[in-house]
């Protein structure tokens, strides 16, 4: 078994299970220089104890100017009795292993090789810049399977993910993984995640949706002056479908008013004075908005978001002529993400919204994706956009409004 241990730089190969017969497989490998000189940098062979050992021996002597790399990995066609969940992981992590091997000259292989395994010997050209021997392995971190790394990354916030993206190529790809961002998005914006999933089912282009872009746009949007985390959709044609998605609840405040005008008036007075949503002066008249922002009762340190859907300015103006709210978008209708949210018929109304116009969706899905990158080369203030606002919000007052809207939702049911 080939092992990698801290400080252990010797090559070892245990071919337990291999026999004389297994060595009868064609030997097509050779010393690294042969392949480096040739035009075939990639060779697929069957394992052979002697040739593998020969290569390993040669590889030990390979150094500059070769700077090539040999990697041996186990294929997937093993036939063990019990399903071994690490086998897939190993194959997934092979890229990382290759990298480690290229730089350290050590081979990492957690399984004994068998004759049924497919061994791949890869000789890669040296990287443009000279790479010396790596630092001593401080653990096997770079051979962690990707799915394990994904689980680790799920505990990181956007800033730390961006930092990780500039650590290595593997980290870069992991930090930009759609799976990761989808799971983060699902955790942070549960409501709209369901909404998008429903949209995805109805539109064939939807699967290409970039969760990361969505997440970051919400997280970094500075439109809200107070908390910097609101996500106002005015003047954002690419998100029209989301704003359209709340059309069905657009009339809900009116329903509230119709049912209980006193409560409506109360909400207006409160919202006029303390709403944290900045007013987009150039908002499109009549366009509804769907605003996701951090809940008021937190200090912006955690990602417990509430979905908030303000009614359109026109609706506000029409319904409340002369009201201080007529020029604002702060009439809010909260859809709470508490345990009863999904039981709310209103929520089902949102989540089963009909797909909007195709052109709008195309605009949305054709958007450029955002790529994570870190500012190790940049200035510290590059991170300002990624830093959650620390400003505390008037939690007590807003929670009162939230309670009011919560009760209004209950009434609607």
């Amino acid at each position, binding site marked *: 078994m080939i092992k990698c241990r801290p400080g252990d730089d010797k090559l070892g190969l245990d071919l337990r299970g291999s026999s004389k017969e297994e060595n009868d497989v064609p030997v097509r490998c050779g010393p690294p220089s042969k392949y480096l000189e040739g035009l075939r940098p990639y060779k697929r062979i069957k394992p052979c104890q002697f040739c593998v050992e020969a290569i390993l021996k040669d590889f030990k002597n390979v150094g500059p100017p070769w700077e090539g790399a040999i990697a041996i990995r186990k294929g997937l066609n093993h036939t063990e009795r019990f399903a071994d*969940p690490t086998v897939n992981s190993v194959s997934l992590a092979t890229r990382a292993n290759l990298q480690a091997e290229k730089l350290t000259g050590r081979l990492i292989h957690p399984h004994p090789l068998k004759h049924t395994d497919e061994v791949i010997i890869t000789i890669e050209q040296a990287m443009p810049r000279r790479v010396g021997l790596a630092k001593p392995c401080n653990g096997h971190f770079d051979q962690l399977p990707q799915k394990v790394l994904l689980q680790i990354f799920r505990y990181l916030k956007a800033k*730390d993910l961006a930092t990780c993206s*500039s650590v*290595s190529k593997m980290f870069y790809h992991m930090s930009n993984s759609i799976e990761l961002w989808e799971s983060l998005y699902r955790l942070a914006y549960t409501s709209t995640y369901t909404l998008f999933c429903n949209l995805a089912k109805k539109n064939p282009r939807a699967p290409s949706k970039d969760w990361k872009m969505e997440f970051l746009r919400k997280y970094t949007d500075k439109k809200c002056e107070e908390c910097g985390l609101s996500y106002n959709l005015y003047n954002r044609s690419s998100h029209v479908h989301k704003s359209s998605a709340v059309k069905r609840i657009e009339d809900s405040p009116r329903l509230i008013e119709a049912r209980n005008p006193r409560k409506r008036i109360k909400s207006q007075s409160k919202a006029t004075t303390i709403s944290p949503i900045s007013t987009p002066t150039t908002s499109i008249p009549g366009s509804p908005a769907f605003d996701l922002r951090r809940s008021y009762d937190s200090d912006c340190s955690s990602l417990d978001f509430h979905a908030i859907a303000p009614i359109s300015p026109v609706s506000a103006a029409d319904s409340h002529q002369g009201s201080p709210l007529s020029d604002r978008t702060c009439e809010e209708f909260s859809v709470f993400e508490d345990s009863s949210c999904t039981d709310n018929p209103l929520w089902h109304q949102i989540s089963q919204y009909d797909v909007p116009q195709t052109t709008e969706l195309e605009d949305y899905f054709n958007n450029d994706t955002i790529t994570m*990158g*870190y500012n190790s080369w*940049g200035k510290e203030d590059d991170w300002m956009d990624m830093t959650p606002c620390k400003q505390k919000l008037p939690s007590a007052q807003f929670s009162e409004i939230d309670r009011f809207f919560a009760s209004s939702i209950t009434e609607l049911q």
Partner: protein
Amino acid sequence: MASESISVTTSDDQTIQLSRKHAQMSQTINSMLEDSVGADQEAIPLPNVSSEVLKKVIDWCTHHENDPAPVEKVKKLNKKREYKAKNSTISDEWDKNFVNAELRVIVDILLAANYLDVKGLFELMCKHIANELKGKTPDQIRERFGIQDDLTEEDKAAMRKAWGATKNDS
């Protein structure tokens, strides 16, 4: 009747006895046990786990043997609290001491927990490593975890460009 202890063979050819209760905390061993009902009592091979790591796993299982199953925990929490459960804070003092080990051991335990499918232990290790990653610069991460910087200047330039575009976009 099934015996109360189970033998497992580790990658370094050591046979270790562990109680059935602890063994069943691992979904992998559990499924192996279910598959081998009625068969001869043989030691279960664990080719990917060394005896040193397995002992650590057994320690953790012993400490957490009375914990409710993770699935039950989630059921009791509402959505909001479920998200907070993703917080990487390790609250248990025993767990804090448990993860206070060499990185090599931590990674080995993580891989073993992944292989043995011990969810609680796996999450604990993930949290610990995530905490190690937090707040560090790329250089510090590379140094801490022994990762080589294989990003070329072209990669970095592309990332820089993409990041600039992102900033302008937002």
